């Protein structure tokens, strides 16, 4: 609650989604990033949950509204409704379970079907702390990310490894896209909200307005 007021002050609000197979650690990535918490005994995510955190990019405050989704396949019909308006995604797999890596392509398709083509995607190999159990090599994952033209990072929510980096990188990239588009448009001050807007939708549509995410 104490952070509540600070939450209100931001220049940009970006909606991100966390997707990937069940049990890869999406919820713990989220809790690590937003509350610096990790729970070995976490509960299954049903449907969707969300959390927010604001970070500074350049001289701007960027608020991330992050939607965490249920991993079970059949929930995609429900969770995909929450992809709308997302400008960034973290597609998570578990480096110790190869099948979660194999399923990444389907998740990617899911994203591309339901989100804007310009969405910033970070491919995240989580549980990198379990070195002796690794089943997906960094090279394979990197190659995949290059082929699919996404960003890539290996993380450990448990060891707090790269979690901050992964989210910050996505938010920064989105910010760059948005501000570059703003520059392209020129000196139209109306194109960008300057902090006065608190409505989630307005902000997201403002992003759309400047052309980053024309549907």
């Amino acid at each position, binding site marked *: 609650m104490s952070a509540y007021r600070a939450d209100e002050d931001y220049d940009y609000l970006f909606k991100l989604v966390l997707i990937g197979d069940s049990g890869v650690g999406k919820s713990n990535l989220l809790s690590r990033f937003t509350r610096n918490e990790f729970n070995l005994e976490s*509960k299954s995510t049903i449907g969707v949950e969300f959390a927010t955190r604001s970070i500074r990019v350049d001289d701007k405050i960027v608020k991330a509204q992050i939607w965490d989704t249920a991993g079970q396949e059949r929930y995609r019909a429900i969770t995909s409704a929450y992809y709308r308006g997302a400008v960034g995604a973290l597609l998570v797999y578990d480096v110790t379970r190869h099948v979660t890596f194999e399923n990444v392509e389907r998740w990617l398709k899911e994203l591309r079907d339901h989100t804007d083509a310009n969405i910033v995607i970070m491919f995240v190999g989580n549980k990198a702390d379990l070195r002796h159990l690794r089943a997906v090599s960094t090279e394979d994952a990197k190659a995949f990310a290059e082929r699919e033209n996404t960003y890539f990072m290996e993380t450990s929510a448990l060891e707090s490894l790269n979690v901050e980096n992964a989210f910050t990188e996505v938010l920064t990239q989105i910010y760059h896209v948005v501000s570059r588009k703003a520059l392209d448009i020129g000196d139209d001050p109306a194109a960008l909200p300057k902090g006065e807007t608190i409505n989630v939708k307005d902000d997201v549509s403002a992003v759309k307005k400047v052309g980053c995410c024309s549907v």
Partner: protein
Amino acid sequence: MEKSFNLLHIIQHRRDGYGFALRPQHIQRYREYANIYKEEEEERSYKWNNFIEQQAKSNHSTSSEEECRGILQAEADELREETVFERGREEDDSSDKNSDSDGSTKSYPGKEVKLSEQPEKEVHLSEEPEKEVQRSEQPEKDVQLSEEPEKEVKHSEQPQKEDHLSEEPKKEVQASQIQERETLLSKESDKEGQLLKETKANKVQSWSWTRPSLHVIENMMSSRVKNIKDMKYRLNTINGDHLPSIKETGSSGESSVAEIDKELCIKETSDDNVDKSTEETNVDSKESPESFFPWKELEFLVRGGVPKDLRGEVWQAFVGVKTRRVERYYEGLLAEETNTDESKEHNNSNAAPRKWKKQIEKDIPRTFPGHPALDERGRDSLRRVLVAYARHNPSVGYCQAMNFFAGLLLLLMPEENAFWTLVGILDDYFDGYYTEEMIESQVDQLVFEELIREKFPKLGGMDLWTLVPLHFHQYASLGKCSPSLGCSSF
């Protein structure tokens, strides 16, 4: 988990009355309000008990059936002996399960539950006629496999109760069936015996009847269930087997029990017998006891919350567990698993079951993690209930969120009761919500979105907030339960 450990937690207010851990930031407030909660709970208990007593009284005065049952009581010895044996184990099981599960005050665990098992007598008495049939038609089986024949007869007995008109033809069917069954049984008897041992060793048979005072509500609610059960029985007769399990009814997994049920439903609407039975159970019917039932008062009580020690049983009464329950069905589902597993492990035909089994395994430790009731034994129960449901209804199988339903139920009632309550909730109230397509969930989501747009145009764009289909699960996964099921928010 040790009882003392639990008590320690309660005393220190680390857990609430249901054993859920309190968040550190809430502990202070919980302490402050602890007395108020206690008073409120006492008031609730008082009101509910009053209501139930009144209902029980008025019911007794109107029903002569009760007396008939009293006479039959003497004949129930054999049956009772059998169940007393089961109960013995059950009590061990449930008493310590309750002591770790509810984690409440000293007065709660075990005792309450045992009290509630009393009505068992009455219920068994009502099954008395069935035993008569059993004796006359197949005495030898009593020796061979005590439980099998009873079930066999029971399947066909239920429709008889419902419509006396069709009694005759059904008996014929029944007789031929029994013969088939007999040969089958003798073949399977060894295997069955083994499974029986297995399941008993696993203590899956824990089942207890609800307290008699709740029978009035239970009977009311059960009248809504009867038609469904009727269908299930017919399903049995169609398949000619003792358990209406999935594999037997829906061959490839494409055609489901639900679909068959629907088909049957269509057929049944043109059936005189069903018309008759729906007339009988019609709420508005003048003769019906339901019309005298103080629904308003009950609704008021439910809205005020169900006291903790009644909650598990009230839920069961509300979904009509007594009427739903088919003897040995639950054990059968579990046994089926052990049977098919070995033979089909390397077969591709059970890809779906393997999928949901994996998901269940993932979710078991992620269901109310840290709750003292969900220790190793509690998790085994949870696994069995979920697996059994998946087998019962393969068109759903397992869907995340069901783990929280089942987990919550297991905190409040014995395992098999939890299974039947889960069946009642998911098959009736959440029909179509958790299937592979989750159609009903999607419909709710869209309807809610539309309503928000209409009623709160300023929020119109906030489709981000379409949380309604997740209403129950969200609460459940937070360790709370939905107001629609009568939980308080604490």
